[in-house]
């Protein structure tokens, strides 16, 4: 790598060469920054500490998953997309599989549907609790109260990952959804463990709230910061808790029900203010709602098969002739959709084009609107409260 002119020769030492914008500071927040949640670069134009312009530059984590999926067969794709939203891999798999099922007109058996919803809700709790931890970390620092709350939250997230590990054998690359249902059935004694974990998390939630959003310091940092209006959120295509915190009552689990949500009604949590505090409250309320749903789902789990089609024995087993479909679900970050154009060449074993609609990308689009006028500390809080996952943004 070539290094450009040494900084010493820049003309800033001569007073008459100062530019009129000399007291403006251009600060790169990221990609190598402790609180950009991955590798996001935000170019901030600062006047003192006040942000007068902010431009986010995603793309540092681009791995070409969509293009890669055009080369892979339908069976192979499912474990690959796990890495998109690396905080909630379950939803990635499910969104992909749902699009394929829509094209193939496969109906998932009832037990499979309930299992999917159960996994989805568990993952939602894990994701939100992880978010609470990182939010505290952003506000409180790695050497402070933030990290204490972070470790408490991660400790409880581990419980859910342990459950997933017991069900699927791995903590991250679950690969538990397949076209037509699930790959892994519930092992013996798992339901009781789910109940234990849910009860423990429910009992400990007040502690995290005392450490974070019930504390006046935390509230002062969050209230009135980064106000996202409902109109702007709708215009930018923001979904999920970010949208619901802005007063728009929209949740795919209720408005376009899929899986077990057709049978179990979901209480959608909303807030009006649209600031960082409202987003926090919505997420915490959603966590409580998810814990309630998990109890319902595990108690009412129907019997029967978990899969409606033949399990994969070869790579090119599933062939989708042609056609296109879009399927979406409510991931912890919003509407996670997959648009698939099937029919690639003769074999029909891989799609012609696959597009994943990541909710985080749309949330990032709000940054230039939200950051202006706040200072650098608020930038971190706003970015954290939007809960973007860079793996999903850049894919």
């Amino acid at each position, binding site marked *: 790598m070539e290094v450009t002119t040494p*900084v010493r020769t820049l003309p800033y030492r001569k007073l008459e060469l100062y530019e009129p914008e000399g007291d403006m500071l251009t600060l790169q927040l990221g990609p190598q920054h402790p609180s950009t949640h991955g590798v996001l670069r935000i170019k901030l134009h600062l006047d003192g500490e006040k942000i007068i312009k902010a431009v986010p530059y995603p793309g540092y984590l681009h791995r070409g998953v969509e293009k890669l999926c055009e080369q892979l067969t339908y069976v192979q794709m499912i474990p690959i997309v796990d890495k998109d939203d690396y905080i909630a891999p379950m939803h990635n798999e499910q969104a992909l599989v749902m699009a394929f099922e829509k094209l193939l007109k496969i109906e998932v058996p009832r037990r499979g549907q309930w299992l999917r919803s159960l996994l989805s809700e568990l993952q939602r709790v894990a994701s939100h609790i992880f978010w609470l931890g990182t939010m505290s970390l952003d*506000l*409180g620092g790695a050497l*402070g*109260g933030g*990290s*204490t709350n972070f470790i*408490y939250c991660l400790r409880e997230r581990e419980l859910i990952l342990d459950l997933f590990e017991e069900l699927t054998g791995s903590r991250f690359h679950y690969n538990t959804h397949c076209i037509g249902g699930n790959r892994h059935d519930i092992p013996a004694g798992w339901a009781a463990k789910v109940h234990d974990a849910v009860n423990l998390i429910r009992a400990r939630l007040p502690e995290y709230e005392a450490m974070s959003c019930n504390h006046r310091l935390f509230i002062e940092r969050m209230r009135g910061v980064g106000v996202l209006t409902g109109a702007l959120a709708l215009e930018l295509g923001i979904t999920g808790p970010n949208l619901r915190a802005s007063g728009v009552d929209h949740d795919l689990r209720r408005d376009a029900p899929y899986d077990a949500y057709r049978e179990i009604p979901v209480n959608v949590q909303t807030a009006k203010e649209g600031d960082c505090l409202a987003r926090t409250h919505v997420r915490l309320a959603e966590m409580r709602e998810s814990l309630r749903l998990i109890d319902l789902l595990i108690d009412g789990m129907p019997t029967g098969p978990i899969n409606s089609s033949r399990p994969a024995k070869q790579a090119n087993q599933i062939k989708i002739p042609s056609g296109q479909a879009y399927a979406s679900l409510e991931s912890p970050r919003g509407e996670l959709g997959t648009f698939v154009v099937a029919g690639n060449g003769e074999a029909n074993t891989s799609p012609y084009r696959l597009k994943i609609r990541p909710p985080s990308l749309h949330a990032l689009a709000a940054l230039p609107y939200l950051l202006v006028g706040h*200072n*650098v500390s608020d930038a971190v809080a706003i970015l954290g409260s939007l809960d973007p996952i860079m793996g999903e943004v850049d894919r």
Partner: protein
Amino acid sequence: MIFAASLAAAVVIVVLSATALALWYERKLAARMQTRIGPQFVGPIGLFQPVADLLKLVQKEEIVPMGADRVLFALAPPLTVIFALAAAAFVPLWPGVAVVRSDVGVLLVIGFGGLAMVPVWMAGWASFNKYALLGAMRAVAQSISYGVPLVLAAMVPVILAGTMDLDGITQFQATHHWFGLWPIIPGLPAFILFLLAMLAESNRIPFDIPEAESELVAGVTTEYTGMQFGFVYLAEYVHTVVGAAIGSVMFLGGWDGPFAPGLHWLLLKTLCLFTFIYWIRWTLVRLRADQLMTLCWKWLVPAGLGLVFLSAAWNQTGWSR
């Protein structure tokens, strides 16, 4: 003379080793708060972890970023340690004994505490780094702002005891009451104010915005490597330890205590204050820069002035004798 010199040497060595121990202690404390174990492999229960850290830091390469002001850059970190240490010279260790007994001890302690801000600004400016500069600007603003409530809080014991000699203040407390306990109205609030201002002066959460690592990467220490970084880090801990000692001298009676007054009481009180400060540190989130300034100028400064007048009025009433 020989006694004074050896006492001085002993105090420096004790403060530095106490700081090293405090590093271990804080890590263990934080680990238990977070239901972890903490350092455990270096020495018995990880006791030699600070030594290992020091050895690691000493071995690192020292990098000076291009464009930096080399002289200031190299000078700043050692100066932070020396200034932070200097305040320890005025702490009365046991009745009548300190490295320096000065009639204006309170003023000198506060002065040296405030002086520690200068090398921080030097470091931030010399690094030629935007994060370091922003951190240094915040540090200076915070330090000079919180200097005012610190002075006002320190004035309360001065008024109550009628002397600026730290040992005189302690002796007054030994013969009357500890100021943290009685008179409770100017005493305890002044103690809390002093603690808050001291937290801010030594950059501890919730006032650690100068090196808010989630915002400004590492603040003024962004460009520092190896032992240079170690010095800034060390200085913060020295500052906290010495600050806790001075707080216990001015408000909690220093070496005074039941049974046998002496150095052990001072150490015990310092340890308690230190634990409290670090418990706060590992519990709270940090404030924002503007909230910090608002808190200082709008609330703490008037409160400090009020406390000063309350203590003066207390002196004039009959209960003070």
